[in-house]
């Protein structure tokens, strides 16, 4: 069975690109989505091991994604990425497994991801 990917969801292409690149360098399989709708589609298709989810996005926001997943009974670990002050409360609101407060560097990102999803053996 192939490695289950990490899905990165953010409407800011700069962040999306950089986060995806970093995780790939760490050996993770990575999928990306620029909004909530695309994220749901990717979750259905790729069954990711972890979703890095921006909250404020066009089309369908982070709350929308969490609600749709709950409705469909899909259980997937989520890490919230947000620039807002109340990131922690937003994360608990949607039952996420953790949150990353923007701005974050490589170190913060990898630490948060590793806590939920250990790096693939191949990379280590």
């Amino acid at each position, binding site marked *: 069975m192939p490695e289950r990917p990490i899905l990165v969801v953010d409407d800011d292409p700069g962040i999306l690109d*950089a986060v995806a690149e970093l995780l790939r360098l760490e050996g993770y399989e990575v999928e990306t989505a620029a909004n909530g709708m695309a994220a749901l589609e990717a979750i259905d298709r790729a069954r990711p091991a972890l979703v890095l989810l921006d909250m404020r996005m066009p089309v369908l926001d982070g709350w929308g994604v969490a609600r749709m997943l709950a409705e469909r009974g899909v259980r997937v670990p989520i890490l919230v990425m947000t620039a807002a002050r109340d990131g922690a409360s937003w994360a608990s609101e949607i039952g996420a497994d953790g949150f990353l407060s923007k701005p974050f560097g*490589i170190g913060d990102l990898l630490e948060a991801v590793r806590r939920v999803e250990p790096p693939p053996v191949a990379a280590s």
Partner: protein
Amino acid sequence: MSADDFLSLVTQAVFLIVFADVAVKAIGGRDRARLDIALFFGVIVAIIGLSDFGRLTGTQTPVVESSLLGLVSLLGYVLVRIVDDFAPQRSWLMGATAAGTLVLIVAAFALPHPAPSWFAALSVAWFAALGGYASIAFARLATRTRGVTQRRMQAVAAGSGLVALAFMLAIVGVFAPAYASDLMIGTRLLALAGGTAYFIGFSTPVALRRAWQEPELRRFLSRAASLPRLPSSAAIVAELERGAAESTGAPSATVGLFDRHRNKLQYHERSGATFETEPDALIGGKVFTEGRPFFTADARRTDPANAQLYDQRNATAVIGAPIASDGRPLGVLLVYARRAPIFAEDDLSLVQLLADQAAVVLESRTLIEEAATVQAREEATRLKDDFLSAAAHDLRTPLTTLLLHAELLQRHARQDPGAPLELDRVASIVGEAHRLQELVTSFLDASRAERGQMLGRRETVNLAELVAETCARVAGNGRNCRSEVSGPILGSYDPDRLRQLIDNLVENALKYSSAESEVLVRAWRDSELAHITVADRGIGIPAADLPHLFDRFHRGSNVDDRRFQGLGLGLYICRAIAQEHGGEISAESELGQGSTFHVVLPALPVAALDLEEARPTLDIEAAPIEAIGPEAAGSGVGA
């Protein structure tokens, strides 16, 4: 003792008590009114004494009889004098009364003893007529006053009427001896009732005063309760003045407020103007500095230096009371009565009560204002907090991108120092850095706008050019912007800020419309004003948002935060730029149809401009008129 004797004794006692009271007051106050009142009851007591003397001795000596008749005539005159003290009567009336009384007194002593019964009847009728007149006069005066004074006036009117009636019954007794003893009882009853009424009117018991004062006080208090919440201090003062005048039955009242910082007493005139005096000037100043209530029956005589001022305000009698809270003087309450009220002490105590109440009202007002200041300060702090958290939020996203890309570059360079530079990533870093720069600039601008320090150096700017340039630049970037300018439009502006204003409006218009729809920018001149409009066919602005459009951090309720990045500072900055130039900005919009922003700025007058532009090369004195022609103007404008 018979019932008749008892009645007589009680009546005499009542009159004696009133006499004792008014005599003490007359000695204390010694004004004409008090002396007249004391005289009136003195005469009554003398009449009682003389008739008792006659009854006890069983004889009517000529002197006693003449004195009795003379005193009865005198009594009527004194009563009319008292009326005159309350409200000046016509002088011919006073003269006629005095003359009539004098004739009767002389006749009383000149006529042979025993006096004919018609003369006794005439003397008594004289008193009854004058008593009746006084009764009506007091009753009419009562309608002009209020509260305690009104009740006392009514009592005095009743007393005069009853005593006049008593004397009339006595006359009937003279002509109908058969009924004399029955009539005597009626006379005594009426005299007792009259005496009691006089007692109430002239020696009012404290409990009665309190009871009579209460409704007026209540009326004032019920209104006072809501006063501190009135929108302005001037409105509160006006209401206090109205309430004080109404409660005292005076035609007008005024409140002087002490301005601690400037050490002045300020009175608000009906016209809305403020009348200001030194804190010790005029009667108001006297009351204010002495800190106790004061009454004068004649303001002009009390303060002759300012007689004209009192005349202008129709102020004859003035009752003043200090307004103070916890011993801290706040101002003064002055009530202008139409006439000299003899019962000034009652009005004085009422005015002091009203002044105390006014102090409570004014203090409450101060507290409310202080609370509002604190609230405004808290609001400002909250706004600052909002500003900081909005700023932090907006800086975070570009900072994240910048940080991640920079770290990636660093990592790649470490792993493979020889690899070519990733230009995409560098471009991304530079782009985010620019975005951060813009954000920081707009925060600084907003902070400058807050302090009214947006503008730098001003110079003569051609607005038409600026508008056309902006639109051309945007159109060059593939966006649909069209300008319609009828120039030149010259004004003294900060060119950078004006460019920023037009840029902001055009960028906004483009941001909220579809890519293919056109943004139309127009600029024209209308006498002394320059106009710019920026119209789009975009998403429009909900009517509810329009009033707050230019507020700091305001973002349209139909603006999707995620699609349209922004701080809600752009239009706030635009308004500051327009206003600091002495202009204004407004917006019209229809949801789904588009919006039009309209900026109006002062422009330089065309003629003045032509000269100003031409000045370096033109000597106006020496040059022929033709030199300031169209060519000169055209070149000066530099279109």
